[in-house]
């Protein structure tokens, strides 16, 4: 079991990171630091864990899907 990590829209282009997976993380912040090599976080970045909005201090477990994206602009 791993943690799936996804990026969307402008954030994905800015970071130039592909979707990936990692082995271990305690929190969303750990995930961010691992996959971006501790890049600065844009102010308005949004995070979801298992399809629900979460915070950077939200816990993460193996098997989870963690997504990072900019403010939504649909509708």
């Amino acid at each position, binding site marked *: 079991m791993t943690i799936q990590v996804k990026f969307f*829209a402008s954030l994905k282009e800015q970071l130039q990171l592909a979707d990936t997976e990692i082995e271990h993380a305690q929190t969303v912040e750990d995930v961010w630091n691992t996959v971006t090599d501790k890049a600065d976080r844009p102010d308005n970045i949004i995070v979801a864990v298992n399809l629900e909005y979460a915070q950077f201090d939200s816990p993460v477990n193996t098997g989870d899907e963690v997504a990072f994206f*900019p403010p939504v602009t649909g509708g």
Partner: protein
Amino acid sequence: MPSYIIEKPLDPWQAISEHQEKMQLDTQFGATATFVGTMRDFNDNSDVSAMTLEHYPAMTQHYLDKLIAEASEKWDLLDVLIIHRVGDILPSQAIMLIACWSAHRKASLDACSWLIEELKHRAPFWKKETRPDGDRWVAENTDGF
């Protein structure tokens, strides 16, 4: 009370009409409120010749269904339909539709207005516009003015 994410062009009025014809409630609803979002050829004072809508498929579907469930708890709705396009969209094409059916008008009107605001702020879609000076991600949803 379905929601659909589609890639093909959408005729919103036909989609609402077809959905309504299939409803078994056609003598129970007295009110239908709808909202249709359409692509304009300008935004923030710039021409826009095309748009691409990216989304987060599993989460988007989850959120549209969640919004419908929440609306159904808040208001007495007989049916709700949400259709949202993704992919490449051209000016004058419909981007999304919301339709709410209820016995009395207030439920459908209030639910429709609530759903469009919630969708704009919570459903993971992202618009990228094609402008004369290149492609540009839309930074943030407006307040609707």
